[in-house]
């Protein structure tokens, strides 16, 4: 389903993407519940249809070099799922995704590989996992630079479980931005780090964005979106509602969905 094309300014091409997942919440989350159900409703639990929950309906989009795309939408509209599909974590049931070059996707900054290992050891492991194509030497110079940037100093030799949420974010973001990539996906990753670091991070992020081919942002921060992005997609109820370069219009549309008394998705929270 995934292939690589050679066209130079195309970074990503998605055609008619459909995605759904099995939602058997009513069956419970344990073998015990499954057993109780089997005894109480034997016919239903064996022959009953699984409930399929749609996540993305017929999504098509193209991404060119230089696109800084904001993905806006309510909770549960499918933003993260779309990005996970692009990153190759989820394989859609229908549709094609053509990617060119490397992709770096970040969905959470509180990730450690081993909480009992030090920050430095975790940084190296993380580097090895997200930049697998780099040589040992290149990787270690990039990681050392990132560790310097993180300003964690002596905490780098402390076990990761002693880190605060913000320190975790500092370490993670520093490593992730250590090497430019063709397509960068950032899913609400600015949370956690303190203000000083956010300012510092944004200038580094600008560098990475400049060196990256294209960026996809998921953010609820209108200010950040208008400042950084040159294109926006509004997702609503698992479909593309708006796709264009008029950021204020996209944001206004999103706000209207929220406050306009329109029917919202079943998972939406305010």
């Amino acid at each position, binding site marked *: 389903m995934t292939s690589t094309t050679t066209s130079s300014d195309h970074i990503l091409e998605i055609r008619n993407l459909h995605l759904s997942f099995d939602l058997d919440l009513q069956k419970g989350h*344990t*073998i015990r519940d499954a057993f109780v159900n089997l005894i109480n409703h034997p016919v239903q639990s064996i022959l009953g249809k699984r409930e399929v929950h749609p996540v993305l309906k017929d999504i098509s989009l193209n991404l060119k070099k230089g696109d800084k795309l904001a993905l806006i939408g309510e909770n549960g509209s499918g933003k993260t799922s779309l990005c996970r599909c692009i990153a190759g974590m989820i394989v859609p049931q229908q549709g094609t995704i053509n990617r060119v070059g490397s992709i*770096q996707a970040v969905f959470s900054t509180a*990730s*450690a590989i081993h909480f009992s290992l030090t920050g430095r050891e975790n940084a190296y492991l993380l580097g090895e996992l997200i930049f*697998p194509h780099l040589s040992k030497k290149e990787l270690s110079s990039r990681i050392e630079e990132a560790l310097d940037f993180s300003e964690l100093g002596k905490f780098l030799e402390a076990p990761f479980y002693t880190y605060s949420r913000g320190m975790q974010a500092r370490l993670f973001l520093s490593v992730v931005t250590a090497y430019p990539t063709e397509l960068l996906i950032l899913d609400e990753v600015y949370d956690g780090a303190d203000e000083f670091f956010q300012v510092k991070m944004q200038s580094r992020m600008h560098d990475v964005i400049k060196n990256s081919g294209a960026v996809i942002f998921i953010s609820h921060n209108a200010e950040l979106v208008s400042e950084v992005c040159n294109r926006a997609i509004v997702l609503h109820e698992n479909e593309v509602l708006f796709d264009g370069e008029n950021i204020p219009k996209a944001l206004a549309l999103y706000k209207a969905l929220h406050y306009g008394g329109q029917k919202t998705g079943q998972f939406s929270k305010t």
Partner: protein
Amino acid sequence: MNIFTRQLYSLTFANMKARYRKTVAGFIWVILNPIILYSVQSLVFRKVLRIQLPDYSLFLLGGLLPWIFITNTLEMSIPYLFNAHNLLRGFRINPLLLILSQVLDNFINFLIAFFLILLPVIFLTEDNTSAFYLLPIPILILFLAIAALSSLASLMNVFYRDTKFVLSFGLNIMYFITPIFYPVEYVPKQYQWIINLNPLYYLIEAFRSAVYGFNSQIFWMACLKAFLVTLVIIIISCLYWNRRKNDLYYYI
């Protein structure tokens, strides 16, 4: 080296580093568990229950050590996928990499513990009827089977969160109905079918037939059966992963 192997190596190494607390003492701590278990069982079955079997120490070694590997690995890797939710959600990482690094870590422990016990036991055994040079074959089969079983059960534990308790209970029972500390010949004819239905029995038997009372024909037959069982486990595991690997991200 391809990327998967390199990452697997790094992750396994990190696992071991975290587990051993980076010291030799930490390593001894981990290795001590199977050695003590083996010593106690060997003593009880030989001196208290007085099982009349020549070279019982060697017999028990061939059954108990793979069993300890199976239970330790399953109990460590099953909750792992669910517990690693921050990691899996954070960025793209192959979930199988995480499980395999757990299996490999335990596998290395198993090999070291096995050979540490094997040396004195060989020394004490008079009549040597073993074919240790053939051990890599059943060991490889055992590794593949447990890697597949761990992957299957670990993913199941994401959707059914009491899998680890049910499995731990099941393994306790299996310990008694798998010929580990008694030979299969002790089992009365009318109960043999219980043993024959037990997949873990085939995995252990292939291993043991190289360690104890080696007979070329029996050994290769046992390996073939163990391999077929492993193949079935791998196929089931692949089918389950294929069907539910997307759902993983919505349940962790």
